[in-house]
């Protein structure tokens, strides 16, 4: 086989890359340009709300550079997990940006869209047929939970991306995909070593994070029958056997095994060595096909409506007794809320976090300091939309609540007006499951358009 070169401009669209490095990559004749567009890394909000984490303008500016580069190279450009969460809506959002840019750049393109949203009825049916299996640890799943989810997506693998490549599209806008599938799809199709196709994809999925200079973004991976070679495209970045091998540790619970649709890759017996100052050669990964073809599912549901308040305390007596103060205040507020609003404490969550004491680590915090001031972050979350009303009731007490009845009413510092900040709807991840498919395309659809 002829080696296959995959150009990866950066770890994710929206984070930026070095344009000079991108141009250098294009001069090296890639066979495909692959970039990730999303992740669950920023929490459940993106999937829950079906929105992008990055601004549209940042995405558009970077996508423009890639569309220009693609035209020069005359190869397919693939983006996976459009708009962070990879819902159908975000694939269409990305298509919209692409259409605007195609007009600006006077480009005529064939676009393949890969849709990964899952119908609730299909998920329920699959659940009933025991086609949905839980991973460890998995939230409880049942029909009610499925009904409560705002979005469910399946993560596409190499097979679904290959279907898109086979349409001859110039640009592939994929919904949720594994980070690696957009990179491994073409080399696998062309007969590169299967284990190494996934391994190289894993190494390059965060762009130049596998090099000495992560912010430059761009890397090229060359795949062949025996292994892969990775090289950063910026003149200021270098790959060493250590920077490359160390990337297998990053964000991976297991540093040797990576599960993908249709099987898993094992890098236990891989060898990494420098070919020259910049390039690293890797061989030895294996691919193990599973009996059943499974894809991972992601789902999010509303966990409540949230409002936050922040009060700052500098009075030494209160700083020293801050936990006692919030304990007393919490009990008092629950009574007041019940009395004045007739709402039981089971209908909402009221939490105080002590900024300056242990707001990050909570009960795990071992250190005790003597802060000069403390911030109290008050979080109210309710199933129905009463958190703003609760915050308004809490507001005056947060400002004036005394430690004892024998003192004048204190007044603390509010840094904002309004004091409360409505955080709107908040979401939670509700799935850590896989779905068994008879055919890889069963849970996915491809749509083609020409512009």
């Amino acid at each position, binding site marked *: 086989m002829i080696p296959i070169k995959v150009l990866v401009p950066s770890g994710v669209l929206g984070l930026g890359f070095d344009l000079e490095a991108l141009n250098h990559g294009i001069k090296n004749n890639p066979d495909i340009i692959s970039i990730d567009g999303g992740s*669950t890394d920023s929490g459940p909000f993106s999937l829950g709300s079906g929105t992008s984490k990055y601004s549209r303008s940042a995405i558009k500016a970077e996508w423009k550079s890639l569309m220009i580069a693609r035209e020069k190279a005359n190869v397919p450009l693939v983006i996976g997990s459009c708009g962070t969460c990879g819902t159908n809506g975000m694939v269409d959002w990305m298509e919209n940006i692409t259409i605007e840019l195609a007009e600006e750049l006077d480009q005529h393109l064939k676009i393949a869209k890969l849709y990964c949203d899952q119908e609730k009825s299909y998920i329920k049916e699959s659940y009933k047929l025991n086609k949905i299996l839980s991973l460890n640890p998995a939230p409880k799943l049942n029909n009610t939970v499925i009904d409560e989810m705002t979005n469910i997506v399946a993560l596409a693998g190499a097979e679904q991306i290959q279907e898109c490549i086979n349409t001859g599209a110039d640009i592939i806008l994929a919904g949720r995909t594994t980070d690696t599938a957009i990179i491994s799809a073409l080399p696998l199709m062309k007969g590169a070593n299967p284990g190494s196709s996934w391994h190289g994809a894993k190494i390059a999925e965060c762009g130049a994070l596998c090099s000495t200079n992560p912010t430059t973004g761009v890397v090229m991976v060359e795949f062949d029958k025996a292994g892969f070679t990775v090289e950063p495209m910026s003149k200021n970045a270098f790959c060493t056997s250590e920077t490359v091998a160390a990337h297998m540790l990053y964000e991976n619970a297991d540093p040797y095994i990576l599960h993908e649709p249709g099987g898993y890759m094992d890098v236990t017996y891989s060898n990494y060595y420098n070919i020259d100052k910049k390039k690293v050669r890797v061989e030895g990964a294996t691919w193990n096909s599973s009996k059943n073809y499974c894809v991972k599912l992601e789902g999010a549901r509303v966990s409540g409506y949230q409002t936050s308040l922040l009060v700052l305390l500098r009075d030494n007596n209160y700083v020293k007794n801050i936990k006692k103060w919030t304990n007393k205040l919490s009990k008092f507020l629950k009574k007041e809320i019940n009395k004045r609003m007739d709402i039981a404490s089971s209908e909402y969550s009221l939490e105080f976090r002590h900024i300056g004491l242990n707001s990050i680590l909570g009960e795990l915090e071992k250190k005790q300091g003597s802060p000069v001031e403390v911030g109290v972050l008050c979080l109210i979350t309710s199933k129905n939309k009463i958190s703003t009303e609760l915050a308004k009731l809490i507001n005056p007490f947060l400002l004036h609540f005394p430690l004892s009845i024998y003192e004048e009413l204190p007044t603390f510092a509010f840094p904002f007006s309004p004091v409360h900040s409505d955080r709107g709807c908040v979401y939670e991840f509700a799935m850590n499951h896989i779905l068994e498919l008879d055919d890889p395309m069963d849970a996915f659809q491809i749509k083609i358009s020409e512009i």
Partner: protein
Amino acid sequence: MSTLGEKVKKIRSKNAGPFWITIDVFCGDKKVYKDVCNKLKNSKISSLFMISEQDLKRFEIENLNVIKFSFPRKIIQGDIFDRDMHGAQLAVLLSEMKF
């Protein structure tokens, strides 16, 4: 007695998907790696992070002089009670541990 952070090159922690935390201890050289491998017991790690020892996965990666620990999060990433979505500050606890 010094801390683990003073002894090794780097300690980092990160979420590995929404349901797991992973911590990498980069020892720097073989001597420190061997020493840390021998002395850093799983029981210490599990009590530090208040998790059960059975939930803790340990990997000793000799060619990188790295010891890696992974465990399921007690609170899922982005849950209303989550205090550190990326779990990246957890490394500090291990770094400040007496060694």
